């Protein structure tokens, strides 16, 4: 199916009237995407025009759950970095 993306590669619209208007005004890119994938999992590489599907092969439910796990993992890693920085600051001022 056809989907339109922003020049930054974010999903914009599946509707031709709005999408063609974006392409015409230089703010959108038209691409072929796989059927049955929710738009939040779609992105476009603006350099190659290749469509990427996040969590490819997973169901929507599994993909959503995995995103939450990934987000929390990022959060946890940032938390670690902050704790280390905090420990360094406290050691420096001790």
């Amino acid at each position, binding site marked *: 199916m056809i989907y339109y993306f922003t020049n930054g590669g974010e*999903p914009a619209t599946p509707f031709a009237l709005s999408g063609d208007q974006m392409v015409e005004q230089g*703010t959108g890119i038209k691409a072929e995407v796989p059927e049955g994938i929710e738009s939040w999992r779609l992105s476009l590489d603006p350099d190659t025009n290749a469509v990427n599907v996040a969590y490819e092969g997973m169901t929507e439910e599994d993909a959503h759950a995995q995103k939450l796990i990934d*987000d929390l993992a990022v959060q946890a890693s*940032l938390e670690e970095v902050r704790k280390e*920085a905090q420990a360094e600051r406290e050691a420096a*001022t001790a």
Partner: protein
Amino acid sequence: MSNLSTILGGSSDAVDPRKEGLPLFGLWADDGMNQHANFRIYNSSYSNVGAPWAAVSNSTTSYRFGMLADPVHSYNMSDYGSSLSQGQLGSNAYSDWQQYGKSSAYMIDQYPDTPYYSVSKSGHIQWNSKHQYTSQFEWVVGWTKVNMVLPEGVRPRRTFCNRSTALREVAGTTPTSQVDGYNYASHMLYTGSGSSAVGTGYNEKTKTLVMIHSNEGGSSSHGVHIFKSSKDLNSVTRIKEFFDNLTSTEYFEGSWTVGNNKDNVVVVGNNGYVGIGAKYSNSMRYAVFNCNVLGSGYTTTASRQSGSWHDFQGSTTTSYCSDQGGGYYTRFQTTWDGTWGLIQTPYYYYGQGLCAYAINLENPRKFVNLNQTKTSYSNPYVPIGRTGFMGGNSSNTDSETWQTYEFSFDPTDSDHNGNTEVFYGGTDGSHVVPQSTNNRSWSLSNGTNTSLQLGYTGLTGGYYSTCYPFLTNVNWWGAYGSADSSYGGK
């Protein structure tokens, strides 16, 4: 002189006491440890106008300290967490107060005391307790608030709520005491669609109150009443006065489907046309009806509707409406000058991103669709400048300026047969003031969609390392006038 002449019954060029200066917004930042925190208040020119001594605290050894009446100070880490601005702002349910509260387009509407936090002009935070969260006003009956189309610079200062066949006034958005109430059932001309008010809008200029009755679920049967009065609802002492002074009552009935009837947003335009928008499955719908005084023969949808139901034209994905919880109802807010409004829902699950109908409030037949597809690191949207909105982005500001999705409209253009120009920002000043004569704007034919564009603000996120700034609304933008830093020059 103008005040004196007004007092003496002369010309009435006095400024409405409700009128505010151009919008302010708040930006919270911290180090993720509740130790370095600051909260800045900016005006519509992105100038810091907060009180220099309003910083919450700065401590390297403990949680925040020192600020009197800090509502967050009394909480421990597990309640408000270590990271008011540091959460990954992902796909979390309401049970996780931080994630829901920080990220969500559900957090903002046109009312100055926004659902779960409001902030004073001097940066005094208000956040409500997360305890009894799902019994709080906004979660349960926030959808009953009347959507107001008001004069320039005015936000709703009284809270009217419509449920069943009773219009009530309540004190702000807390489940405390009712102020007033009136059962208007005797004024209704049609009750065949159900007796639950499910979406109400009011236009102060035309003193017109439009309300839908159906059931508080998914019924497709709707009755719409149009009450016109010689009394302004926002000026009456008792609600009964509005209904005692009706100059016209008409209705029409029809069948349409939205996700849940609690999601209906009714917007009464200055020209008598009324826009009704709502979440519909993962998407949204919008329709316009002629609610001018037409006579008793216009009681069907077909006799009132302008065009047909319009499905949202942007990107959509799984996202929630009132079916999944009372707090997920569709929101409405307006620009400072009251010429444009947004009927909005988030793009992604519990609150990230944006799907919005931008509607001209002079003529609701003129509208475009706006879309932003973030799935994390989001923020609410708030009014900015004379005729715009901004927000939606809380991405890491480490080594970056804080960026935001700002956009604005032409307040004088209400022609639904012409294109709508939507201005947006960019990544440097030359984008906004280019050498060419072209505006940095989209030109959208009526009813079409565009995706919003990030712009650089030049502002620091508020902390030297990892930092995800948290955007808030401000409950009073300052009295309109040149003595106030939020004046804006108009």
